[in-house]
């Protein structure tokens, strides 16, 4: 039977940990940026949109390298973080989280933004006349209506984070138990003589993991959808 080796368990656990942490950490920012892009008009909106979408269009290795320059221990921001808070990303699982979060961010923002754009601001206006404060309107009207979109965004980001390779290996390196997630373990196996069977096993695990993530999100999104039933007539 399919018996997982300690190294495989380690890679799976690490992958899940990194992907989950990256989605959880980027969600508040994703909501904020999506809301700004969908609802507000301000100077530099185009620039913000371009900045958010950069990781989607440039090779992940480039993103990883830029992050290394910026967040590495000698980097502009990285040095300050290390000196003042003793935080370091390179050779650390937190680095893998940051790499996964940056690369998957545009997918999350995109899905939430599209969903937000379908919410009729007039409904929020109506909620205001009924006595709800802006924050209450957001949580009782806007959020429930965009929930399927948020779930979709989180799933896409999670899947992208699970598969993240280029930025991670460039920025956080390939250290067993620390930053060696499934794709990195798979890559290592293919670079090792006689590692084909190990690689094959990792491929199966990766496919299974992604499939389960998709099924779970599909289930959640459907449940949220059921409660909302889009396309209410005006």
């Amino acid at each position, binding site marked *: 039977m399919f018996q997982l080796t300690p190294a495989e368990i380690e890679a799976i656990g690490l992958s899940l940990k990194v992907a989950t942490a990256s989605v959880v950490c980027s969600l508040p920012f994703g909501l904020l940026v999506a809301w700004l892009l969908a609802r507000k008009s301000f100077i530099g909106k185009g620039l913000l949109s371009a900045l958010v979408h950069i990781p989607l269009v440039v090779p992940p290795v480039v993103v990883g390298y830029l992050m290394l320059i910026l967040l590495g221990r000698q980097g502009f921001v990285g040095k300050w973080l290390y000196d003042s808070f003793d935080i370091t990303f390179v050779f650390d699982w937190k680095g893998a989280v940051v790499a996964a979060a940056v690369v998957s961010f545009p997918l999350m923002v995109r899905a939430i933004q599209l969903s937000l754009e379908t919410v009729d601001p007039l409904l929020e*206006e109506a909620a205001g006349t009924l006595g709800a404060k802006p924050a209450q309107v957001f949580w009782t009207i806007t959020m429930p209506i965009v929930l399927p979109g948020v779930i979709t965004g989180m799933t896409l980001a999670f899947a992208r984070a699970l598969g993240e390779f280029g930025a991670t290996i460039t920025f956080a390196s390939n250290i067993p138990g620390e930053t060696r997630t499934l794709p990195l373990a798979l890559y290592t196996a293919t670079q090792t003589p006689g590692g084909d069977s190990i690689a094959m096993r990792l491929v199966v695990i990766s496919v299974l993991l992604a499939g389960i993530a998709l099924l779970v999100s599909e289930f959640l999104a459907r449940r949220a959808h059921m409660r909302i039933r889009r396309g209410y007539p005006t």
Partner: protein
Amino acid sequence: MIDIAIKHYMHLGDNSFHLDIELNVPTKNVTALFGPSGAGKTTLINVIAGLLRPDSARIVIDRTVLNDTEKRIFEPPNTRRIGYVFQDGRLFPHLSVSGNLGFGQRFSSPVAGSDKITFGRVSELLRLDPLLNRPIQGLSGGERQRVAIGRALLANPRLLLMDEPLASLDVERKAEILPFLEEIGQLFGIPIIYVSHSLPEIRRLAKWIAVMDGGKISAFGPVEQITSRIDLAPLTEAPGGGSVLSGYVIRHDEKLFLTYLECEHQRLIVPMINADVGAPVRVQVRPEDIAISLAKPNGLSVLNVLAGHIENMRDIENSPSVDVLLNVGDQDITAPLWAKVTKLAVKRLALKKGMMVYALIKSVSIDRTQIGIG
């Protein structure tokens, strides 16, 4: 009293629009906001609700200042306690009927006298019980508006704004909602500002009317008075228009299916209506249904004979008709009444301004839809 003074300048594409309003609305009864499309009716109530921040405004309801640009006071919509029934209902799609109704209750802070508006009473009045667990998507247009009205009421408003709540409904659905609207103001004692461009609707529901045109109030006063003014005729004339007489029920004749009313100290007999004795009523009378007689008629089938004098006359070009504005009633209590007669009749009877005449109205020419209760 609701004191409203607003100045607001808007650009709409190539056009600009200037809203310049001064209006004092009584905190009792229904006040209609009437005018052609583009007159600024919706803009005005959006400013009152706080949905639009005007260049300069002072809005005070019973000494509560909601907006005073000079003193830099601007209450946001959620603290104004002004209910708003939108034309399209704007029900929340992710909530059921009871969820929508409860939303109003959930966030409104309790105030003195708010115990009058309970979920039970609103639900009973608007017959919402069978709908409570239904999703919004399955509701008909009329049901949606009933839910929207209930939701606004349950937020305990100090003023209720209604933006053509019946405009999107067909005739039957309108007839379904109108009776509810008639009862609301009376039962809960909430003043209502009702936007409409349907005069029959206004005549039936409203006591006061503000006529709007081009961003300004061109007239304000009791519905009977304003809708009978000659100078406003181009604005207030509508198909099936006419005058409104107000009075109250004296008695019913159940055998002959008639109701006796007293209107401006004179008796008016109409087809039987479902109202208590003493209940105030308003009757809309079409100009075509009125005949004019110089003497009190004898041997005539017409039941309603109202004494009055001719206030004004206006020839209608290229037509056989003349509009005659009568003033019926005693010397001190009179009501304007529009009649339409032929030029030939005016000539034969030698009708002139100031003449004493009798207005004859056939009872059967008045149907139930022309009579408003309350």
